[in-house]
């Protein structure tokens, strides 16, 4: 049994896959430095290597479609502990079969990747819906989210296309990094700062003078589109899970 330790990044994972093929390793286990190491067997550190990663990534396209390849990345962003291993199995299977294996939903790794990618995709879609920007005094549209999966890399393009004429930032409070658009490009920025601003304290100090007014109007609108005769709380919560509420102005008590 070979144990490969990679740095936890996607590039690192692809470098590990490269190593597996380069040395024709059998029975490989992938772990990150945070995970406990197995007691027995060979242990090898994988150095993340962009060119090697790129070769694996490009190589996949010989057999599977671009959409299927994108699913591998989405499944990776689920951050599930078992996923690197499943992705390795999937890629080994694809390279061994030299065929479009993405359609074999009777294969456990293919099915797992497909289903996990779908979950991540749903979270991506929900974040496109539930980001709420607040306009700061510096004319920055600023939002905080806490997605279940690491979806900021997936939503970046959506927001770049949509808000091409305003500066914005979306901050992932769980993973402590954000994406920032400066009217030209989107960059990822790491930082750790106090998100309590979001909860309504100090709002006047940091936000544009009209900000509170528009939040209030949105709350007002939200309250008035409801049809009381059709109330259905279970359905409401199914579509708008409670865990998102703390960042949604329409679910805050009116100020």
């Amino acid at each position, binding site marked *: 049994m070979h144990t490969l330790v990679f740095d936890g990044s996607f590039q690192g994972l692809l470098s590990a896959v490269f190593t597996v093929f380069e040395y024709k390793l059998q029975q490989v286990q992938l772990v990150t430095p945070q995970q406990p190491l197995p007691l027995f067997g060979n242990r090898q550190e994988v150095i993340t290597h962009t060119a090697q990663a790129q070769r694996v990534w490009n190589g996949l396209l010989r057999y599977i479609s671009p959409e299927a390849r994108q699913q591998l990345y989405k499944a990776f962003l689920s951050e599930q502990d078992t996923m690197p291993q499943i992705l390795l199995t999937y890629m080994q299977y694809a390279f061994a079969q030299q065929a479009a294996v993405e359609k074999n939903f009777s294969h456990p790794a293919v099915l797992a990747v497909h289903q996990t990618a779908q979950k991540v995709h749903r979270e991506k879609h929900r974040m496109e819906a539930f980001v709420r920007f607040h306009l700061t005094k510096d004319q920055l549209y600023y939002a905080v989210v806490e997605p279940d999966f690491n979806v900021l890399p997936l939503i970046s393009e959506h927001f770049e296309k949509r808000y091409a004429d305003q500066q914005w930032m979306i901050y992932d409070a769980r993973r402590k990094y954000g994406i920032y658009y400066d009217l030209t490009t989107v960059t990822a920025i790491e930082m750790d700062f106090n998100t309590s601003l979001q909860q309504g304290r100090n709002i006047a100090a940091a936000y544009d003078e009209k900000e509170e007014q528009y939040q209030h109007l949105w709350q007002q609108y939200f309250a008035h*589109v409801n049809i009381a005769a059709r109330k259905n709380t279970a359905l409401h919560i199914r579509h708008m899970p409670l865990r998102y509420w703390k960042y949604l102005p329409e679910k805050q008590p009116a100020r």
Partner: protein
Amino acid sequence: MNDRISEKLSILADAAKYDVSCSSSGSKRENVNKGLGNAAGGMGICHAYTEDGRCVSLLKILLTNYCIFNCAYCVSRSSNDVKRAAFTVDEVVELTINFYRRNYIEGLFLSSGIFKNADYTMERLVLIAKKLRTEHNFHGYIHLKAIPGASNELMRQAGLYADRLSVNVEMPTEQSLQLLAPEKNRQDMLQPMHYLKTQILQHQEEKKTSRHLPLFAPAGQSTQMVIGATPENDMQVLLMANYFYKKMQLKRVYYSGYVPISNDNRLPAIGTPVPMIRENRLYQADWLMRFYGFAAGELVAPDHPHLDMDIDPKLSWALRNLHVFPLDVNKADVELIMRVPGIGVGSAHKIVAARRFNLLTHDHLQKIGIAYNRAKYFITCKGPGTLVKDYTPLQIKQQILAMQHSKYQPNFSPQLTLF
């Protein structure tokens, strides 16, 4: 000024909420020149859900709830004693832009009561859309209500600025319309629909040769029918919908379960429950017509003019057509597999893709994500676990219902065990 806007918003959102159209998908409008917004790219986005569970994707408001007409089913009708309000053009534009910039909405759905006359009203709706597009470089979604009776020239302009247009027919038949909205006539509603259809088709034709043609209502037309206010059966409703899809090429037909809002002896009394299950069944049937290749006549027919209330229309069709089943999932055409209760379009395609690698067993099917307990009466596959017996339709129905009830048992009172 804030308080006034706030009050108007309350009144005019309230009055618009019975219009059920909420779609913000199907447009092709892309952000150009670093403008604001993007309505291209398939799926629309629901940004919030009301407490009744409906999607909020657009700022859906009336320009005004003043109205010279007096349609019995409408809150804004002239004889109703409600507070009236009207937005100015700029107020609507500001609200839309500011909500959109904060990612509250996908765009604007603008409808209106009729002040003065159709053209006067339509002109204002068009002006708002025009301002958003030309002065604010806005590429978000705009849905305008086409006011029946407005001139063709205004309809044409509306098509240039809006992504979608809709004329609500409101009542499934002419007789009901006569009864509840005597000042309106069906021809006034169908005429703009027809005009827009012709324009949209013509535009698509021209688009083939000239690439830089501006968009014209790229997300098409939709309409709405009120259900349960009048005695039409589901067959009448679905045949009407079928007519709109086939002859008018509408993108969507919406069904709105009537919410009693006034004491009018032509209408169900206040307190009559909203026909939510029926409305849901109509949407299911509509979905089957649009995505599953069902003809209206397969779902409802003179000998069963109503959709079943206790089971969904696909199961109901399968039980009436047991001679088609069981299907061998390893051989049958995808179109037929889609018709199996418990198997959706997505799963049907997965099955057909996966069976080229392996003969599928019931275990594969379950993992792929079909509702096996429902589908099992209608399919065969490889290996043990396929037990198609000679059940009668009634037996299958009872078993499936029993399963559903046990799943929801804690939610029901003991009385339900009577079924």
